């Protein structure tokens, strides 16, 4: 035993690079708990170096054509395949124009070199409390498509992430893509991150409203403040019910900072995070509603 995990090399495993989804699913079905899917590998390899994971089989899904797709269909929304990288998402026009919160989250995450490999789906599956990707996705009510040899299912991202590095995925399942519903033309969304002096966020917020003039649907999702992204339901209600929007913004911020679960950790204390939640909320909502 040694302190920490000072390793530079990886534990042993067998590498597989299936050419089709079917092949991948079969491999996964065969090895189950002994296998791990690898997309960009950015998270997986780091986890293996830390000995947090030591799969006997690594199934690299980068050669599977259908997982490389990113496409938008009017009325249906945006589909992002499991091996689409953060760089590809960041450059995607529809994402930039329509799914602004997602664009901002991807832009603000890691760095351009990492993003050439890291995938959004991998980011979700990693389920590290500090990551950015899931936060806007939950705000958009995005869903994952999950497949195994004998089943296809869909699940909202919000339910999929259960806790720190805990996800709702059977050992023989692969997340094939993430679906973002189409948004009404009046919809607005924004993402903001506080990470001064830190690589990872101390707090993030992704906000979505269906219409900034007449909000009937609003979602406030906070990341990096707790063990998983959390929604501020009460604060959302304040936005929808309060006629005076400037007042609503402040009240919602106060509410959000009180109602959600917040933790202390290496990066920040609970106090400070609650305070950041308030600031982020005012910042983001006043921009969405264009109020002072």
């Amino acid at each position: 035993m040694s302190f920490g995990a000072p390793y530079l090399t990886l534990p042993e495993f067998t590498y597989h690079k299936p050419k089709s989804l079917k092949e991948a699913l079969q491999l996964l079905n065969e090895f189950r708990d002994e296998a791990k899917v690898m997309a960009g590998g950015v998270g997986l390899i780091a986890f293996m170096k830390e000995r947090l994971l030591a799969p006997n089989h690594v199934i690299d899904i980068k050669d599977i054509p259908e997982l490389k797709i990113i496409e938008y269909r009017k009325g249906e929304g945006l589909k992002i395949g499991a091996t689409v990288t953060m760089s590809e998402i960041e450059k995607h026009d529809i994402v930039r124009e329509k799914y602004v919160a997602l664009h901002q989250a991807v832009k603000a995450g890691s760095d351009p070199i990492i993003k050439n490999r890291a995938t959004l789906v991998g980011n979700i599956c990693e389920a590290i409390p500090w990551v950015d990707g899931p936060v806007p996705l939950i705000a958009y009510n995005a869903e994952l498509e999950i497949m195994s040899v004998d089943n296809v299912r869909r699940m909202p991202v919000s339910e999929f992430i259960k806790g720190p590095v805990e996800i709702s995925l059977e050992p023989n399942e692969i997340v094939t893509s993430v679906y973002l519903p189409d948004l009404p033309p009046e919809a607005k969304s924004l993402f903001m991150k506080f990470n001064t002096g830190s690589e990872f966020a101390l707090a993030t917020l992704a906000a979505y409203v269906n219409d900034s003039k007449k909000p009937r649907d609003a979602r406030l999702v906070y990341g990096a403040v707790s063990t998983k992204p959390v929604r501020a339901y009460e604060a959302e209600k304040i936005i929808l019910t309060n006629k005076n929007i400037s007042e609503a913004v402040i009240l919602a911020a106060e509410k959000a900072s009180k109602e959600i679960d917040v933790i202390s950790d290496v990066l920040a204390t609970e106090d400070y995070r609650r305070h950041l939640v308030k600031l982020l909320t005012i910042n983001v909502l006043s921009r969405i509603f264009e109020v002072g």
Partner: protein
Amino acid sequence: MGRWITLTVNGSKRRVEVKDNEILLDVLRDKLKVKSVKAACWRGECGLCSILLNGKLVKSCLVLAVEVDGSEILTVEGLARDGELAPIQRSFIEHGALQCGFCTPAFVLASHKLLEENPSASEDEIKESLSGIVCRCGTYYEIIEAIKDASKHYQVRKKV
């Protein structure tokens, strides 16, 4: 238990036997002796292991060697042609954009790639594109100057 993979490294074809759990960084450095590729964190944080893999910058400490069979790799050793330095290399020297030099191969390569794609990169774009590489000696101002100064050569090239 090893597998043979083929890589084109800085223009020359190399065949090498690797184990499934070997990291590309280690194969490049230890087996292919491409020593310009450095490492300081081994987990994606410092950027010193950056290489161009099929034209894209990646951090080679987070890549398995087996997955890149058949790929093309460019490192800073491949930038100078016939003893003639690439403009960005000359500019790094002239502007004193290096101290201990340990981060220099990564910065030179990333800057070269940036200017090839975007010869008129703004200061903000320069900063954004290099934000994944650490220079502890703090040579950042000089690096920015070196890139700005070298950009004219890349603009000309792009026109040609």
